[in-house]
């Protein structure tokens, strides 16, 4: 069922590091988390030994950076003709989709893990709730997986990485803002309560906020898990469409 998954995962992961892409991404990710945490988040002003100001900006960082990681996943295969090669190797569709997704997720996870000096700093300065910080990291990784699955799915629909990037940013932004008061108010005016609730429940922001505070809810894990499953299934189906060109 998952044939070829590990071989593809290994190839993809190595692929990030043979070009400067990986290094640029990691450097920018770390620099921006720093800027956001210390400058915008007021880490020191808050005077609290926690990483709330660090996690708060993750969704916004991910909206721009994750589609940049995901955009090449399938669009590049389509453009380069390697999709045909990959499809005629003894690899299952599920194995290929999962292998690529996991490679991107591991890569983003690595970038996230490299923010560990943040955790050291806060432990040096005070006595934070390390359980809450761990929950924050888990939540951030889950949310990154959600964004990545959306990006992978969009990337499978096009040959152009630029289109994949732009569409992914918009879709991801949609998921983020779904919980925003402005969006909710917009729907409240005319839509039935069930629709408003449905839209609000799609929000990454609301779910992530809780996790950033250290509260982990099984429903949030299920939400991100099913989002990833739905997006990757769609990803597989999209690959079969448009093969004729």
């Amino acid at each position, binding site marked *: 069922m998952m*044939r*070829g998954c590990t*071989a*593809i995962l*290994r*190839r993809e992961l*190595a*692929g990030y590091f*043979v*070009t400067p892409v990986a290094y640029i991404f990691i450097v920018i990710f770390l620099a921006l988390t720093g800027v956001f945490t210390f400058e915008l988040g007021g880490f020191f002003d808050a005077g609290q030994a926690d990483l709330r100001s660090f996690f708060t900006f993750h969704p916004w960082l991910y909206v721009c950076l994750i589609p940049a990681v995901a955009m090449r996943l399938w669009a590049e295969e389509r453009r*380069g*003709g*390697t999709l*045909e*090669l990959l*499809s*005629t*190797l*003894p*690899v*299952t569709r599920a194995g290929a989709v999962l292998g690529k997704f996991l490679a991107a997720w591991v890569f983003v996870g690595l970038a996230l893990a490299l923010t560990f000096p943040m955790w050291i700093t806060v432990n040096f300065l005070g006595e934070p709730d390390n359980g809450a910080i761990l929950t924050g990291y888990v939540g951030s990784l889950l949310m990154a997986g959600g964004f990545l699955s959306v990006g992978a799915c969009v990337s499978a629909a096009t040959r152009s990485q630029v289109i994949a990037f732009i569409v992914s940013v918009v879709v991801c932004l949609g998921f983020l803002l779904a919980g925003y008061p402005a969006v909710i108010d917009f729907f409240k005016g005319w839509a039935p309560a069930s629709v408003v609730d449905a839209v609000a429940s799609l929000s990454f922001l609301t779910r992530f906020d809780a996790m950033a505070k250290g509260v982990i809810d099984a429903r949030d894990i299920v939400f991100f898990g099913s989002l990833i499953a739905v997006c990757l299934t769609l990803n597989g189906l999209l690959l079969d469409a448009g*093969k*004729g060109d």
Partner: protein
Amino acid sequence: MNDGKPVESLIRLENLCKHFGTGATRITAVESVTFSVGPGEVLGFLGPNGAGKSTTMKMLTGYLPPTSGRAIVCGRDVQTDPMWVKERVGYLPEGAPAYPDMTPESFLKFCARVRGLTGRAGHEAVSRAVALTHLEGVLRQPIETLSKGFKRRVGLAQAVLHRPPVLVMDEPTDGLDPNQKHEVRRLIRDMAREGGRAIVLSTHILEEVEAVCTRVVVIARGRVVADSTPASLAARSRYRGAVTLSLSPPAGRSPLDVLSALDEAAQVEDLGTARTPAGELVTYTVLPRAGKDLLAAVERAARTNDWKVDQMRLEPGRLDDVFRDLTGGASR
């Protein structure tokens, strides 16, 4: 495998059809293609551009599902047993796609791993394919920096990595210079020699068919229009048995008149005058009337008229001529 029965043909295509789109925009790429390829055969899949060669190969290798019909490889249907078939097929897609950032070494290792060849077996498979395709000198260079000829060889190495009983190549020499073409053809012949293998290669280059193929299938507008050996196909040509001769222009009667007057000649083509180190030469091709011994008649004429003949050649038939006839001289 295959219930213990011997596998007679490694590839069997049965009424393979492919339509793209629906309704008014429906395009029929492959109308109905049927043929089979046995072990040891090198089949040239010939046709004008757009005739459906690539689409047929994509169905054969499991990339595209057929609209109807079946593609059977080593006794099993590509659609019902895709993994089983893909393990036994080596495929060089058109343009030999490969990951440009990777080196041939890492690319081939990846392909080996995907095919379940790990550790020692993987190492051996890669070394063998590298030796066969002479990639030793560029193993650590990114594929995007390689010349077209080397890229094609990387694609070929990938296709033969697992010693597949069935090898499918889409336009293996397209876009290469004459030296590279020669090299790739040599590789294909080497692969054919490894024995017991069925090879299908598509092309629209006729000299290629004559150079490497044991059989030829011609396809036009999605249908098979001929299936035979290159020699017997060429024999269908109206040039079969024609005589081409070059001679110094004689002082007397024009050779064109003499040749045209022969009972055995159906038609004479004047190929013009050329200056060669041997002096000025005029060349004619004389097409035979059916059942007549043209060569003897032309020889007689040359003797009687005291021509200084530089060269005389009996034509076995011209494949390009037959190709044009079969495919209607036009592509879509």
